[in-house]
């Protein structure tokens, strides 16, 4: 049902029917607000990011024809929110985002030290690494570092304690660090 909804939204976008945006908003509003809210702290800005996201959806489809509309719109709102963040001072940054970045900062290669490694290489390596994880651990990692969820929210989502989430993330990062080394991606 959900997939057919997405197909319908994409079809409406292709036919330039503005009802597509209403449907996308209805279906993905909550998800978008969550993602954006994990990055930004100002509710007004978050709403603006959602509007921008819908606008980009309208502008990019067509020609884009995403197979996975949920991921597609998630990426848009995430990037829009991150771009918005660029204009903000540190006080407006989500503490959650800062924390997530700092955590990954320890294990990912520094572009100043290892500039020949491009972001895409690292991203693809991380993606392959995630294939090696158990589903729950993979999802927890993504919730933390892609959706930028708070640990407490992840804990609630998976019905485990916050400390358990932290432990899983800690070990996953350690594994990722080792994995990147094997892939010749050094810090």
């Amino acid at each position: 049902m959900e997939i057919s909804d997405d197909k319908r939204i994409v079809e409406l976008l292709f036919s330039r029917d503005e009802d597509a945006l209403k449907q996308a908003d209805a279906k993905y509003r909550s998800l978008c607000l969550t993602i954006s809210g994990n990055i930004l702290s100002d509710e007004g800005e978050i709403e603006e990011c959602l509007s921008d996201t819908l606008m980009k959806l309208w502008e990019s489809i067509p020609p884009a024809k995403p197979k996975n509309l949920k991921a597609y719109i998630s990426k848009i709102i995430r990037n829009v929110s991150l771009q918005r963040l660029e204009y903000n001072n540190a006080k407006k940054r989500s503490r959650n985002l800062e924390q997530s970045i700092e955590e990954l900062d320890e294990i990912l290669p520094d572009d100043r030290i290892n500039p020949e490694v491009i972001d895409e290489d690292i991203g693809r390596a991380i993606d392959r690494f995630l294939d090696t994880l158990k589903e729950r651990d993979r999802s927890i990692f993504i919730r933390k570092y892609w959706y930028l969820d708070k640990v407490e929210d992840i804990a609630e989502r998976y019905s485990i304690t916050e400390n358990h989430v932290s432990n899983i993330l800690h070990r996953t990062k350690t594994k990722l660090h080792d994995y990147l080394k094997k892939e010749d991606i050094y810090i």
Partner: protein
Amino acid sequence: MKKSRILNAMDYISDDKITSADEPIRKKSSAALALTIIGACAAEAAVVMLISSLVLNSGIIGGNVSVSNESGAHISAVESIMSSAAALDSEAGSKPYESGDYSAADSVGCESGISSESFYSTSSASSSELNGGYRCLIDYDNLPFEYDPEKALPYPEEIISYVLWQGDSEPYNISQVSPLDKNSKIDTLPVFRSYKQKLFKFDEVLPLLKRIADAAGAPLTDISMATNYNDDDFWYDMFGEASNEMLMEMNAKAGDVSIVITTENGLIINTNDKGIEAVFDALNYSTYSDIYLNRILNGDYRSINDSNEMEDKLSVMECIGMYEPVTPQEALDKVRSGYYGSGPWAIDPILVGDDEEITEVGLYYEQHYPDWSEDDEESKKKGIYWYEIPYYEIVTVDGSGSRNVYDIPAIIQD
């Protein structure tokens, strides 16, 4: 800069993974609950945790089985059954233990009816009288249930035991884990080891677990299995709120070992004494032979480690069969309240029935008669082993709520 690199890199995570991570989590309902196999046996002066004990044959399936929902709460029916059985146990306590009853037991069979309470009250004072250096086997010919070997589950003659061993290396060392086999040499404790040293693969046991779960009204949906030290669940569940640093330290020490453990999320299985040792080392115990759990059960855990820090670390108590991390006092209270019995033995919920129908659910009382006195020369002469099982007592309730008590005599062998 680096921050943007991180964010950019994360953008290359595949769409499927992103959407998958946002899928609703399947919540375990009361109709689809996790199976927890738990149990605890804390012997008098050393600790052996009998995580589970299963009697495998078509007539009786015994095992430490409990059913809990995601928050660890018990299915009321199971709890009721356990309470009922505990009450029966209390009633049985009206029959006093008489010293020497069991040391006098000869070739076959034992008197039954001794209560956990009465046993407990006397065992510490007269452990040397309780033993005879016997090995015990279930007398299948005299089971109170119909028993058809042809319909038996795999390895019908055996009792599967999940043993988390923690004790002195001598004389209660790993080689003596099996009470049924004097010559057993268990260098490590495989995941599913029967008393006859047969190693069970998880796949072999899984059907049994499913049957138990189904019969208990809890479809088996959430058994997780950890087979090595890297498993997050194990380390977490073992240590609860312990710090990451401590966990990592233990990982480093543990090497490729595993330990038997269970959690509210299912059956977490690891096993190995080295793993235990690493665990205890990390907890700042001098050695894992500190028999600390037993002391905890006796309420004097502070004698092990004067630091209040100890209390914080004792979510490890979970491993003795609590459904969730508890403080030592809570664990003690639970044990003493009779929830898991009041003495040093396992109380193992069982199911009675056949392949088609489980007719009764109850508890399987495996009486352990410990003698831990290393210096007891008299005991040594008698060839005392770390415990014996003179009889098995099973208390069940059936569909009508009627209680049934079965005493299954053990075959005592010299």
